[in-house]
Structure formats: structure tokens, C-alpha cells
């Protein structure tokens, strides 16, 4: 069917629905949606007018090196044969990312920048750090007649964004900021101009060539450069990369994958205005009204407003990206999103000719499917088309038999709407898990809120949806039959009446939608648990139930990971944060493929940390978010790459840590394998105490952080991704992920082993049970209320959650929550404030009652591994309090006799203290040299009979080959060690190392080579005929040198 017809019908619908707008707030939403709809519509219908308009927007983002790059419409037509012109249109962002070595010169002084830029044309710039301002600045070459030749424009870095001072536009990172300024001058006097060599480059290879010059680029002779480039260019022009090659070559470029930038070719294969969204400010206050409105409408108790706002922000800034992101997402995503749109559409009250529009619709999607992921979802009623979506395939089969036909479309919608990909799989497993789906879907339709009368609540969202959004209307008509609407209304009514849910799925009537939404808080999370008792609760009653501390219902959950979501955990005012930890805990597992989880990224980014925790505050929020994703998901692909600087940086570090070819990855790998040798046995054999073990882990992480900051292995300087005050935090997170996460089990085992061996475990257990028998008063607890057994049970569960985490920060956050909980019990709404005199005894009492000897190690773990910068904060305080309380319990028997701190404890404290000072020392002095990290060496034992075995050995930087050989002989239990030698095995060659050389230096040297081939240190029998080659020539460039900080070598 001709596109124009669709276009027309859409317009009609828009008009129709527009008239139905009654409430003014709906207008606001409407305008937002209209905007979105319009864009999407143009995507569908290839309307030329739209294209012209859009392509203008888009065009700015590209440097058009060739005039033949026409406007969008024409481009779209010639697309198939137009690679030649397209491929040259590298986006500015690409250019910037690949050539950051040229323009991002943080170390440059103003004078140097001025010197560099003086010879450059107006608009040329470098980004550097100003020492006086302590900020990054864009040094810009001004007009020749301006008073200063080079002017600095400071860059404002907030927690997650970069912006120019005075500008209202914020960007996720420096690259996007600069890219934007290259197109629009914003607060600058004129737009930034990339050097000719960069702006005219046509391939990534050329860009890389430029990037190699680094700062030297500016000094090289301009003309020469140009010449070189024209030479370089020639061969490429005739060989434009094919479409399929494109992405590959992209990812092959170091640093690029992280941005997931698309070449125009990639994008344009789907539509002409594809590259629209390369650059997007994160925050522009455009649709603020819409935002507030949505927030208000959707608000319900426990809903994290921040989350909503964020989504709205996505909407605000993302609407222009609708088309592109759709293209970006994989087919599953795409149809999923669209399903979602359907689902939202259910709530619309506007009705037009269903048949005709669905007819249109279908035709349209048929048209589109063959050449790209379906931009529009198939209407729910068309079963054959459903199969288009892999996601559906996945979750559908269990359900289909269960549903009767007329509900099918509802379900369909639900699936598309509420089901997030990650929720989806678990939900579809059992029938009991299906209600959450419904929840997911139905939520946006009617959201009960305590703040508003029920009836108005369930209706207002409908009204809000009656906005004139043409696109949604179109779908709405597809999805909505009179019946459906009636059902929806019914549902709302029923919901109001607090309908009790029947448990069997097959008997569910329309009202189960409503019930489902009442349940969502629990069920979404406790997806596998049947929550019959609470299932029938009216949503609005939940908060009050959660708030009454003596919650009589016992925890029904056996899986502790799910615990925080149980009603039990809602009695704290920090309840919202309950979910966060785990989410984060589990998340790394999903991270396995670094590039493929847009969802997660969206979850984690953009919100300042304090708010972020709130986002998770309830399942309803989740649902809400998911529901909104129908629109937002389209943007998610873009935001995935745009908006997660922190996440991206962490990923980058993780990737690096897994890349054994990198020096960093090698160090991390060596450390981890050293620690985990013998699943922890080595750890407790090598170290004398758990404390020492933990301290060496901490030391390692701290040093690696410093290394990362200095090293060039991070392809993109981390300063350009994250604002400076965040860097340490982000690196800490990353290090925890790549070191603590794999080591947690090992460390736990080792700690336990230490405890068992030293006998403290038994002592602790004995004393705990003694202390547990004491009355609160005997523990020094004053008259304040003390927790009853139920509360103790809750606290215990929280402690159990702590034990499952690896991140000390998160553990501490949990600990703080427990403390908060204790305070709440003590205060009991009296408003009285309790200081340490009351709190510490109470904490001791609670710890004794919990009777969890494993907490001792947990506390030690936290104390030693927590980022030292946090030791002085609130977390540090309560950690010390917990440690103190535990110490008191540990020495309970002796307590009456001697009230002195046990020598052991004093020891710990002293060491902790000195560690703290050491850290200060480290930050003051220059950072440790590479030698600090070279404590490990992986050596392979080559044995003719047994093949190869490898061990990671602790080898100091100044250990000679001779010493290493002795160590190897010992570790590998080689009897005739004299006949063995250490060899360096590289591709195809093997050299024996001279006895007086230093393996670690050789390793460092090898790593520092530009193309490091894989190499191994092999401990094997010396063949009689082999020659001993001194590898000294290898290490010529190493100075004989620097003072290694031995701490890491001898932890």
C-alpha cells in the first residue's frame, strides 16, 4: 500500500484524537508524542518532505566531503549504488574518537596551545587541562583580529555530563561535546573546526594515521600532511568497503567498539536520515512540562520519581532518534519495542476504523519486513506475523495453550509491553509467573496512587494517552477493539473494588490484569514465588503494610538473592535501595558479552548514584520503566552508546582486564590465577593471616587503579569519558569487578581457613552463643526499645544478603541499612536521637542475637577492601562500630576480666591505620612504577611425559632467572633442577634465558612492544645442544633502575 495513504490515515487519526483531548496535561503529552510520532511516521512512509527536513538536521553531523552526498530522499534512492559517497561520510564523532590523540592534549599549557594553534586556521582547537582553572578547557583559535589569538572555554564536568560553561547542553562525554560544537557553535563564537587532515579523511585508516602523529600532528608541516593524505586516499576511494565489512572494520579499530558509532553506510542501508543522532545533548530542558506531568501521573508510592524523570528525559532528548535507534536495535528488540507501543495503545479511548488501519498497517509491515527488522510490529491479531519476533517465539509457547483466543491480543500486548527481555525468560517458565507479565503491561494503563482518588487515577492515564499521537493511534486502532476497551474499563473498575485474584491462570478474567498490577511490586521480583496471600492486596494498602515493622508474615522466600524484594524488606525508608545492590551484583554476569546488553546500560546510566538507587525502589518502577520503554527502547540503542560513560569506562577496563595481550590484563590475570591457585589453598598458604591476604588484594587494586590512570592502554583517555572527580570511583568499581568478583570465593575460603586454623572460629562460635543468651540490659543496652525476634530475623536476612556480595562498597551500604533499621527500632518514632552510647551496645546485642559467626570475616573483608577514601565516612564509622561490636563478642568471656583491647585487635587496627597512611603516602608521592605490579610470573612446566602445566609464581622485579628456576623447581617439584632452565617461548622460537637476567623485565619489555606476540616462560629440561642466548639485548631500553615499592611483592 502506498505510503501516502498511511500517512493520511495517521493524520486523520491524529486529528481525531486531538479533539478528544480534554485535559490540558494531555495536551502536553500529546505534543511530545506528536513529535515522536511524526518522526516515526516519516520513517515509515518515506515521506519526502520529512526527509528533506530531517536530512538537513542530519547533514550537519557529517562533514560532507563530496557534493554528491545529496539530501536524504535522493540519497535513499541511490543508496544501493551509493556506497562510494556514503562511505566517505565518517561522522564527526568517529573522526573525533579516532583522532583524540591529536586534539585531546590534556597536558598542554596555554602557551603551548597558543603556539600550536597560532598557525592554524580560525576555529581550530585543542582540549587541554588548565592548571589555573583546574578544569578542562577548549582552546580555540580565534579570529586574527581578535585581541587574543587563542581563547579558552572551560568545560564543566558534572557527575555524568560534560558541558561548556554557560551552555545548557550537556553531553555524555567529551567527544560528543566537541562533536556538537563542531556543528553548532552554542556558546562559542563559532563552531569548532577539525584540522583539514582529519575532516577530509575518508577512511578509518587515514584517521588512525593522523592519530599516530599524536601531538606531533600540530608540528608537522601542513602541506606535507595534506600530500600524504591525498596519497593515502587514492587507493581507498576506489575500494569502498562493502556494507558487510563495515561493522567489522569498525570494531577492529581500537577504542571504537565502545562507542558503537555507526558509519553512515551502516545506517543508511535502512533509511536515508539514519545518522541523525550521533550527537545528542543529554539534558536539554525542552519538554519539561511533559516531564512533570508524566511524573505526576505516574507517581505512586514507592515509585522512584527519578526513574520516571529519567525516562522522560530520554523521551525529551531522544525523540529525534527514534528512527535511527530502531535501526540499530536487533530485530528482536525492534519488534519488541513495537509490541510495547501496542500495548500502550491499548489504553487509548480513541476509536476509528479498526479494520482499515490494521489493513494499512499490515500491508506496511509486509512491505518493510524483507529488507530490515520490522520497524512496526505486526498487529497482534495476525498470528503468522507474530513469529517475526524472536522474543515472542521465546516466551510465547508456554502461554498460547493457556489463553483463550480473545485474550490473546491482550497477552500479546503484554508481552511486548511489560516483558523485558530479561524478565521475559523467567516469567515464561511457569504459569505462576505469568501475572507479572500482566503487571508489566497493565501498569501504564492505570496506576493506582495514594495521592489521588482511585477513579481519577485509573482514568487519567487513559486520557493522557488520548493525545494526538498519530503513530500510537494507528496502532491503537489495530490493537483496540471495543471489547478491549471495555475490558480495560472493567479492569479499572474491578481494580477499584479491590478484586481478589483467583490463582489459576485459565480462570482469569479480564480483571486479572488489575490484580496483576496490584501484585507487581512483589511479583515482578519474586517471580517464582507464589504470593497468594498478598496477591489480593490492594496496591494502595501495601505501603502501610510494609511500613509496620512487626510484619507478621514470615519470609516465604528461600532464595536469599530475592529476599530484599520480599515485603519484609520494605519497612525501611531506604527500601528503594534494597534492590539495587543485587541488581548490580548480578549484572556482571549479564555482562559477559560486553557489547550486547543495551538494557543494562540503560538501567545504570545517567542518574546520579544517589538517585540511581532510588530508581529501583519498587517493582512498579521497574514496570513503569519497562512500559515506557516502548518509546524509550527505540532510543536505548543510542543512549546505550551515548549515555553511559561510567558503564562504558567500566566495561572498557573489564575488557582490558580480559585481554591478556594487554599489560593490564596480564597483570590482573596473573594476580587472579596466583590467588586462586588450588582454589584458595595457595592464598592461605602464602599469607600468614586473612588480614594480610586482604591487604595484598587491596594493595593490588589500588596500584592497578593508579596504573590505569597513567597507562595508555585505555584507548580513550579515561578523562574524556568521565568527569575527573568520578574517575577514581569508577576505576574502583571496575577493579572490584575484575578482581574481587572472581576472587570472592577464593578469599572467603581462605579467610575461613585462617579462622579455623587459628581456632578463632570455635572461640567466636562459643562466645556468640554465650552472648546470645544475654539479656539486652546485660549487653549494655539502655532502656531504648530493642528489636524483637522478628526484627532480628529480618536483620539476619539482611546480613545473609551481605555475605553474598563481592563488592565491599555494596556490603557497606547494606550494613548501613541494617544500622538504620536498628536506629528505627530504637527510636520507635519517638524522634529521639541516639548517639553511640546507645547505639553501640544495641549493635552488639543485635550481632549477638543474629548468631552469625561468618560475619566476622565479612566485616574484615569490608574493612580491608573498602576503598580507603571511604574509611572516614559514614560507612567507615559503622563498619568500625560493627567491627568493635564483633570484637567485644569475640572476647566476650574475657570481657569482664580484662577490658583491654585484645592484642590481636590492636594489631589489626594498627595495620589498618598504617594502610590508611600508606595510602596517603602513595597519593602524595609519585605513583608507583610499573615494577610494583610485576609481582607475578606465569611459568609453564614443559614435561615430556605430562605435557604442560602452568603455575603463577610470585616473582619480584629483581628476581633473576636463577632464582626463578629455584622457585620453579620447588613449585613444580622437579628433582634434578640443575638440568632445567627457564626459556622464553615466542612464536616459533625458544630461547633460554641467562641466569643473571630478570624475567620480569623481559616480560615488561615484551609487553611494551608495539605488536606483542604471545610469549610464555617455559621451565623445561635443557637440551644438550641448545645455546644460551642472553636476552639482555631485549631489555636494552630498560633502565636499570627505579625503586620498586616492594609492598606488593611481599604482601
Amino acid at each position: 500500500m502506498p505510503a501516502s495513504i498511511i500517512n493520511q490515515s495517521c493524520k486523520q487519526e491524529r486529528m481525531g484524537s486531538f479533539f478528544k483531548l480534554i485535559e490540558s496535561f494531555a495536551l502536553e503529552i500529546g505534543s511530545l508524542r506528536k513529535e515522536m510520532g511524526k518522526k516515526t511516521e516519516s520513517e515509515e512512509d518515506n515521506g519526502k518532505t520529512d526527509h528533506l527536513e530531517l536530512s538537513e538536521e542530519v547533514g550537519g553531523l557529517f562533514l560532507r566531503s563530496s557534493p554528491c552526498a545529496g539530501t536524504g530522499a535522493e540519497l535513499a534512492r541511490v543508496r544501493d549504488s551509493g556506497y562510494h559517497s556514503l562511505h566517505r561520510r565518517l561522522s564527526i564523532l568517529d573522526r573525533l574518537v579516532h583522532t583524540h590523540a591529536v586534539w585531546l592534549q590534556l597536558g598542554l599549557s596555554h602557551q603551548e596551545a597558543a603556539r600550536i594553534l597560532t598557525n592554524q586556521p580560525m576555529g581550530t582547537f585543542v582540549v587541554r587541562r588548565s592548571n589555573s582553572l583546574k578544569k578542562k578547557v577548549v582552546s580555540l583559535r580565534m579570529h586574527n583580529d581578535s585581541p587574543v589569538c587563542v581563547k579558552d572555554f572551560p568545560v564543566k564536568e558534572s557527575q555524568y555530563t560534560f558541558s561548556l560553561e554557560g551552555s545548557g547542553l550537556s553531553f555524555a562525554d567529551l567527544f560528543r561535546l566537541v562533536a556538537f560544537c563542531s556543528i553548532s557553535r552554542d556558546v562559542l563564537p563559532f563552531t569548532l573546526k577539525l584540522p583539514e587532515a582529519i575532516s577530509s579523511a575518508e577512511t578509518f585508516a587515514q584517521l588512525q594515521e593522523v592519530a599516530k602523529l599524536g601531538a606531533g600532528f600540530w608540528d608537522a608541516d601542513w602541506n606535507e600532511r595534506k600530500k600524504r593524505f591525498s596519497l593515502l586516499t587514492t587507493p581507498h576511494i576506489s575500494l569502498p568497503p562493502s556494507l558487510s565489512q563495515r561493522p567489522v572494520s569498525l570494531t577492529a579499530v581500537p577504542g571504537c567498539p565502545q562507542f558503537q558509532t555507526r558509519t553512515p553506510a551502516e545506517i543508511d542501508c535502512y533509511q536515508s536520515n539514519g545518522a541523525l543522532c550521533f550527537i545528542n545533548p543529554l539534558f536539554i530542558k525542552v519538554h519539561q512540562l511533559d516531564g512533570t506531568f508524566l511524573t505526576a501521573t505516574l507517581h505512586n508510592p514507592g515509585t522512584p520519581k527519578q526513574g520516571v524523570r529519567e525516562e522522560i528525559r530520554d523521551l525529551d532528548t531522544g525523540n529525534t532518534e527514534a528512527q535511527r535507534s530502531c535501526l540499530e536495535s536487533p530485530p528482536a528488540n525492534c519488534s519488541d519495542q513495537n509490541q510495547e507501543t501496542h500495548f500502550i495503545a491499548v489504553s487509548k479511548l480513541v476509536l476509528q476504523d479498526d479494520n482499515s488501519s490494521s489493513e494499512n498497517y499490515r500491508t506496511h509491515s509486509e512491505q518493510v519486513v524483507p529488507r530490515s527488522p520490522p520497524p512496526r510490529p505486526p498487529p497482534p491479531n495476525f498470528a503468522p506475523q507474530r513469529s517475526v519476533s524472536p522474543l515472542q517465539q521465546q516466551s510465547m509457547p508456554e502461554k498460547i495453550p493457556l489463553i483463550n483466543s480473545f485474550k490473546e491480543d491482550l497477552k500479546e500486548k503484554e508481552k511486548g509491553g511489560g516483558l523485558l527481555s530479561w524478565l521475559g525468560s523467567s516469567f515464561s517458565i511457569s504459569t505462576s509467573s505469568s501475572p507479572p507479565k500482566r503487571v508489566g503491561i497493565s501498569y501504564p494503563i492505570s496506576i493506582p496512587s495514594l495521592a489521588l482518588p482511585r477513579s481519577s487515577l485509573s482514568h487519567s492515564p487513559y486520557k493522557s494517552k488520548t493525545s494526538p499521537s498519530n503513530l500510537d493511534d494507528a496502532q491503537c486502532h489495530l490493537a483496540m477493539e471495543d471489547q478491549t476497551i471495555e475490558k480495560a474499563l472493567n479492569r479499572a473498575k474491578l481494580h477499584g473494588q479491590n478484586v481478589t485474584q483467583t490463582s489459576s491462570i485459565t480462570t482469569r478474567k479480564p480483571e486479572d490484569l488489575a490484580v496483576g498490577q496490584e501484585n507487581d511490586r512483589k511479583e515482578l521480583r519474586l517471580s517464582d514465588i507464589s504470593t497468594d496471600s498478598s496477591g489480593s492486596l490492594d496496591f494502595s494498602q501495601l505501603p502501610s503494610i510494609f511500613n509496620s515493622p512487626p510484619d507478621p508474615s514470615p519470609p516465604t522466600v528461600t532464595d536469599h538473592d530475592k529476599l530484599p524484594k520480599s515485603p519484609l524488606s520494605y519497612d525501611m525508608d531506604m527500601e528503594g535501595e534494597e534492590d539495587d545492590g543485587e541488581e548490580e551484583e548480578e549484572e556482571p554476569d549479564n555482562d559477559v558479552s560486553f557489547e550486547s546488553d543495551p538494557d543494562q546500560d540503560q538501567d545504570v546510566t545517567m542518574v546520579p548514584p544517589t538517585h540511581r538507587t532510588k530508581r529501583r525502589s519498587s517493582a512498579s518502577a521497574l514496570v513503569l520503566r519497562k512500559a515506557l520503554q516502548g518509546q524509550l527502547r527505540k532510543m536505548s540503542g543510542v543512549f546505550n552508546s551515548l549515555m553511559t560513560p561510567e558503564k562504558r569506562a567500566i566495561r572498557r577496563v573489564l575488557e582490558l582486564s580480559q585481554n591478556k595481550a594487554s599489560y593490564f590484563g596480564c597483570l590482573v590475570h596473573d594476580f587472579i590465577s596466583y590467588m586462586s591457585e588450588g582454589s584458595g589453598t595457595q592464598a592461605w598458604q602464602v599469607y600468614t593471616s586473612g588480614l594480610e591476604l586482604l591487604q595484598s588484594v587491596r594493595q593490588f587494586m589500588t596500584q592497578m587503579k593508579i596504573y590505569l590512570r597513567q597507562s595508555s592502554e585505555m584507548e580513550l583517555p579515561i578523562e574524556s569519558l568521565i568527569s575527573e572527580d568520578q574517575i577514581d570511583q569508577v576505576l574502583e568499581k571496575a577493579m572490584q569487578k575484575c578482581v574481587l568478583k572472581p576472587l570472592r570465593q577464593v578469599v572467603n575460603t581462605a579467610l575461613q581457613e585462617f579462622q579455623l586454623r587459628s581456632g578463632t572460629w570455635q572461640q567466636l562460635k562459643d562466645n556468640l552463643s554465650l552472648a546470645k543468651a544475654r539479656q539486652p540490659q546485660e549487653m549494655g543496652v539502655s532502656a531504648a526499645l530493642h528489636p524483637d525476634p522478628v526484627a532480628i530475623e529480618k536483620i539476619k536476612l539482611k546480613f545473609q544478603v551481605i555475605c553474598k556480595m563481592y563488592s565491599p562498597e555494596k556490603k557497606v551500604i547494606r550494613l548501613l541499612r541494617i544500622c538504620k533499621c536498628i536506629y528505627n527500632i530504637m527510636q520507635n518514632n519517638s524522634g529521639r536521637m541516639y548517639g553511640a552510647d546507645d547505639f553501640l551496645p544495641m549493635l552488639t546485642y543485635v550481632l549477638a542475637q543474629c548468631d552469625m559467626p561468618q560475619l566476622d570475616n565479612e566485616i574484615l573483608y569490608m574493612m580491608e577492601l573498602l576503598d580507603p577514601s571511604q574509611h572516614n565516612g559514614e560507612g567507615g564509622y559503622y563498619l568500625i562500630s560493627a567491627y568493635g561490636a564483633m570484637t567485644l563478642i569475640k572476647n566476650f568471656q574475657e570481657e569482664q576480666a580484662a577490658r583491654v583491647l585484645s592484642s590481636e585487635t590492636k594489631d589489626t587496627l594498627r595495620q589498618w591505620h598504617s594502610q590508611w597512611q600508606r595510602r596517603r603516602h602513595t597519593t602524595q608521592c609519585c605513583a608507583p612504577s610499573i615494577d610494583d605490579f610485576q609481582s607475578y610470573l606465569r611459568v609453564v612446566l614443559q614435561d615430556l611425559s605430562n605435557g604442560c602445566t602452568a603455575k603463577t609464581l610470585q616473582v619480584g622485579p629483581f628476581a633473576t632467572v636463577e632464582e626463578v628456576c629455584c622457585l620453579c623447581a620447588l613449585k613444580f617439584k622437579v628433582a634434578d633442577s640443575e638440568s632445567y632452565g627457564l626459556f622464553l617461548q615466542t612464536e616459533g622460537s625458544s630461547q633460554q634465558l641467562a641466569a643473571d637476567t630478570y624475567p620480569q623485565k623481559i616480560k615488561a619489555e615484551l609487553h611494551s612492544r608495539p605488536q606483542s606476540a604471545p610469549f610464555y616462560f617455559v621451565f623445561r629440561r635443557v637440551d644438550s645442544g641448545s645455546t644460551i642466548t642472553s636476552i639482555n639485548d631485549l631489555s636494552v631500553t630498560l633502565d636499570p633502575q627505579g625503586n620498586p615499592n616492594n609492598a606488593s611483592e611481599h604482601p
Partner: protein
Amino acid sequence: MLSKVQLYCCDCPRELKFGKSSIVCRFVQDHFDHNISPTIGASFLTKTVPCGNELHKFLIWDTAGQERFHSLAPMYYRGSAAAVIVYDITKLDSFQTLKKWVKELKEHGPEGIVVAIAGNKNDLGDIREVPMKEAKEFAESIAAIFIETSARNAVNVEELFQKISKQIPPLENPEVDSNESFKLTQQPVASTRRCC
């Protein structure tokens, strides 16, 4: 500039514990404004005090004063920049306890720790047992800050922290600063109580 302040409370007999809480609470409640970031409980408080051109952020660590927790005190004053010891001017033995605390701090406390002595319950002058002169002289003898306060009437509480602020050695490196901490040891109203 961020500074960690540890607030040591010497324990006082149970019946007197109110004095200690009140000075802490006063400290917080009086300034329940943007300067105070919320904390989960009164044992740990933060407060920002303007000092010259900078802001000093105090992290106040309250210390349990009971005898049984005495052994834990070193954990709390570790790394502190200042300690406030509070005694009760109406209880002579609280002043004696204070002396013990000062001794301990001088012997085991961080080097260069700023000690402030606060005589609380200034409003109950009629039943005063510790003459101001004596306390002042003692404070001078140990080069400590001395001030009499009334937590109930909010007298001199702010001043106390201003004074501490001024005495905390300026740190050259702002980054190092941020880890500097003050410990306030407050000897509460009662005699045996360690100050918070």
C-alpha cells in the same frame, strides 16, 4: 575542604547520658539546614563550618563512653584531626574522667590532634562543681581549646566548632585534606562519661 572530625564521647553514668546526646543533637538540630547532610543516626554526623574562605566539613564520630567500650576508642580516634571532650560542669568526676581522656589522647592519639574541652551545662551555673578557672587552666596547660557550652540553650556550640576549625592545621594538599579528620571528644555532662 573536607575534614573528618571524630567526636569522642566519654561515657558518663547512664543517668547522665542525656547530656551527651543533647550536645550532639544540638549540633545537628540547630543547623538543620543545607550544611548538614542527613545521616542514618546521631552517632555519625557531618557538618560544614565556614572557616575563612573555605568550608570545613566535619565528620563527627561519636564514641560510646561506657567503660566496656573503652577499649574500642582507639578505632575511633584513629586519623582524627580533632577531639572534643565534653564534661559536665555540675559533676566534678566528669572533669576527672576528662583528664584521663586527655592523657590517653596525648599518649595514643594521632599526632597533632587538636583537643577541645567543652564544659557543658553552662546554663546550670548555680550548681556548678567545676570552676571555670580550673578547667581553663587545665586546658591551657595542655594547649587545648576551652569553651563552656550549653547544649540546651545552644550556647557556644557553634563557636566551639569555629574554634576547632581555625586550629586545624592547614593542609597543603587539598586532596590530602579531604582525608584529614577531626575527632571531637566530648566529655558529656557526667563525670565518668567519655565525651563524644
